């Protein structure tokens, strides 16, 4: 490691000596080492399902579009697109794009990428996002036409999916292990479970990155990863980080630090089909017992933000005027009284008809912050006379064995990658929606979500989603506890890093942040 530092320092010194004064500020280190919390499961973008796979494939592949900081889709491999009608999307590809193996990228590769994602036997995790695509065809080498079964405006945001080379994949190349993309970096070495080494692709269409080599080192333990950073064995570490490490690292002037709001939420999923929380007045009362500020300030150390509604502040659909109920134990107490839940026997727990007021709140054990949030909520609930029973288990037991079977009362979990409001609302709240685990049903909301999905007019969509968010903030099938924050620490030798809300790493390479 030290030798690499020396080498890097020597290269930098030489380039600084050789460069005119005006270029000096642009000099980037030749090697950058970034800590990862898990190894990537695959480097095939169609099958990526963990954050590491997303982050690494973002460097190796390019999609038709890229998302601007306000999440609006911008041209990428596609230089332009048009909608002759709401069911047709026609994309024109950029000229002169080549894959890392030297083969040219054409419309056939785009068609192949999306056709394979849609094949059920491919088991692509994001397949559901693309199912409204009825047909995809190459009009010519540079033009791709998507035909939809119904109008589906969020599609554009999802077309940042990396394009894979048809010829190589059909020829038997395992791009999950040996990826071939059109992105700024290509894979040079992958020691499974240990590290991924990427090198700059000189033929990258937007100009080769300044950083020649990116090493992504896997260290599962948060504290150990922070210590490796302090020992200068890593140049960049990012969320997830432990609160005590964040505090220590922030006190060290040698490190740069940045926080941004991510594209995820942490929320309470109320099972509206369960009699305990089927009454919206009960859900409101319980929501008023959630001390969001203490949770984000004390448990998340200010990295996450108090959420006001289901719309993300970074989204074009956001409105600050839509607010869910805020923490107010006095109001909650009155509401519970009004519902007939009073402590008649003096045991500190409210009761009605001889039955104690009990709710089960659940989460998964992998995220210590969520476990702490639940424990904290339990104590506040208890003070308000609500007996909260905790149910904490590992992720598969909690998600697939419990919440997804609608066996929960109140569950604390999250959604990530909310690049379009549709992704967080349509399948989650539509009556009988596939992700509607809380069994919520509201015809008015169904109609609004339908409008949001089908309209191609951004203003019309915005209005629909704001109305929908207001209904959700009032009815509370979800209570959004926080907007997930995203934090990065970096060696100051890298200059000043802009943070990417998804932890994508193009900015680390000295490229424009995405």
């Amino acid at each position, binding site marked *: *490691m030290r030798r690499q530092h020396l080498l890097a320092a020597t290269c930098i010194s030489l380039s600084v000596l050789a460069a005119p004064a005006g270029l000096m500020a642009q000099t980037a280190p030749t090697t950058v080492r970034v800590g990862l919390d*898990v*190894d990537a*499961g*695959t480097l095939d973008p169609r099958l990526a*399902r963990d954050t590491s796979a997303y982050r690494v494939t973002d460097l190796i592949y390019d999609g038709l579009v890229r998302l601007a900081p306000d999440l609006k889709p911008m041209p990428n491999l596609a230089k332009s697109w048009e909608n002759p009608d709401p069911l047709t999307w026609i994309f024109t590809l950029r000229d002169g794009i080549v894959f890392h193996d030297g083969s040219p990228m054409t419309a056939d590769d785009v068609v192949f990428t999306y056709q394979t994602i849609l094949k*059920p*036997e491919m*088991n692509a*995790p*994001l*397949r*559901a*996002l693309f199912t409204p695509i009825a047909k995809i065809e190459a009009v010519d080498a540079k033009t791709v036409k998507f035909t939809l079964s119904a109008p589906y405006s969020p599609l554009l945001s999802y077309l940042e999916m990396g394009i894979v080379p048809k010829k190589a994949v059909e020829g038997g190349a395992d791009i*999950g*292990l040996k990826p071939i993309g059109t992105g700024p970096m290509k894979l040079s070495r992958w*020691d*499974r*479970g*240990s*590290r991924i080494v990427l090198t700059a692709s000189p033929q990258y269409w937007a100009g080769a990155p300044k950083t020649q080599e990116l090493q992504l*080192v*896997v*260290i*599962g*333990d948060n*504290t*150990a*990863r922070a*210590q*490796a950073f*302090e*020992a*200068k*064995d*890593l140049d960049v570490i990012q969320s997830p980080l432990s609160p005590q490490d964040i505090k220590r690292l922030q006190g060290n002037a040698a490190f740069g630090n940045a926080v941004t709001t991510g594209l995820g939420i942490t929320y309470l999923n109320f099972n509206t089909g369960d009699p305990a929380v089927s009454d919206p007045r009960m859900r409101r009362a319980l929501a008023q017992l959630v001390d969001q500020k203490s949770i984000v300030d004390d448990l998340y150390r200010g990295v996450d933000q108090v959420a006001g509604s289901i719309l993300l502040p970074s989204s074009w659909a956001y409105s600050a005027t839509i607010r869910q109920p805020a923490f107010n134990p006095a109001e909650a107490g009155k509401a519970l009284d009004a519902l007939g839940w009073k402590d008649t026997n003096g045991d500190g727990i409210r009761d009605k008809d001889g039955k104690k007021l009990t709710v089960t709140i659940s989460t998964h054990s*992998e995220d210590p912050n969520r476990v702490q949030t639940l424990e904290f909520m339990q104590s506040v609930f208890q003070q308000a006379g609500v007996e909260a029973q905790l149910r904490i*288990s*590992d*992720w*598969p*037991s909690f*998600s*697939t*064995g*419990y919440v*997804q079977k609608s066996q929960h009362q109140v569950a604390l979990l999250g*959604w990530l990658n909310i690049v379009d409001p549709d*992704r967080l609302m349509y*399948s989650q709240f539509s009556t009988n929606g*596939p*992700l509607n685990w809380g069994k919520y049903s509201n015809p008015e909301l169904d109609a609004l979500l339908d409008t949001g999905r089908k309209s191609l007019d951004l203003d019309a969509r915005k209005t629909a989603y704001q109305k929908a968010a207001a209904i959700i903030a009032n009815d509370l099938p979800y209570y959004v506890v926080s907007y997930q924050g995203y934090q990065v620490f970096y060696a100051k030798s890298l200059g000043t890093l802009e943070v990417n809300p998804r932890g994508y790493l193009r900015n680390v390479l000295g490229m424009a942040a995405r």
Partner: protein
Amino acid sequence: MLTYTIRRLALFVPMAAGMVIVTFSLLLLVPGDPAAVLLGQEASPEDIARLRMALGLDDPWFARLGRYFAALLQGDMGRSIFQNQPVAGVIGERLGATVELALAALMVAIVLGFVLGIAAAMWQASWVDTACMLLAQLGVSMPVYWLGILLMLAFAVQLGWLPSIGRGEPLLAAAGMALAGNPGPLLKSLSHLVLPALALGVNSAAIISRLVRTSMIEVLGEDFVRTAYAKGLRRPRVIVRHALRNALLPVISVIGLRFGALLGGAVLTESIFGWPGLGQLTIAAISQRDIPLIQGIVLTYAMMFAVVNLLVDLSYALIDPRVRLG
């Protein structure tokens, strides 16, 4: 001895079958659906149902178990659901790193354990004894996880003497390069190995040292030791050639058992030091309910443990001529 070895090796088969059945039953009882985990939160119930069928998860348990055994008999451990690669290959990639770490930790445990144990026994009831046993007490009480973080903090963050994370070239390959006149990779590999091996080995060292002390004190009081001194033999020779050899037997069997504990402890150590072994793979496989991979890993651990215990039993015969195997 050969007959004994063959008989013991033959016993591996029912033992492995038992392990497979126990693991399989446990996985049946644990909630969580690999198909749903694989497809993620956003998958539709139809997609999950179709994948369950494709993976054969809806078949009756006896059919699944039968199929697994049939494949196993042909040397096929199945495919990892998540990595979509043969389980044997996935495990093979990581096995070397874990064995290297566990053996290095075992070396640490044996060397430290014997030095402390013998010193404590030789100077029984003196300050040396107290100091050694105090260290042993510390070693037994400190969790692998905590010690790992402390070592990293001291030697990597504060002093900067050793790398905090990762693994160099595999030790055998690095040793080969060193023999060919290039010692650089070997030194690098060793520098990466020191901290994780220490973190993992200290607990076992402490246990071994206590046992060596007790065993040595017992043997040092025996008549044959007094006779050896009476013959005019010098103290080091009496300790090493006469006393230690007799004190070894109970220690050896514990060393075999400790190897199992080291394999278990490696799960945490690997996660702290970014060591690319089976430990991290095990955690991932369990949290993803990657059933074939979990089965394969458990089977691999069980076989390693069985082999080490066979070696321990065989070593009895070498150390103690009174022991006859057959």
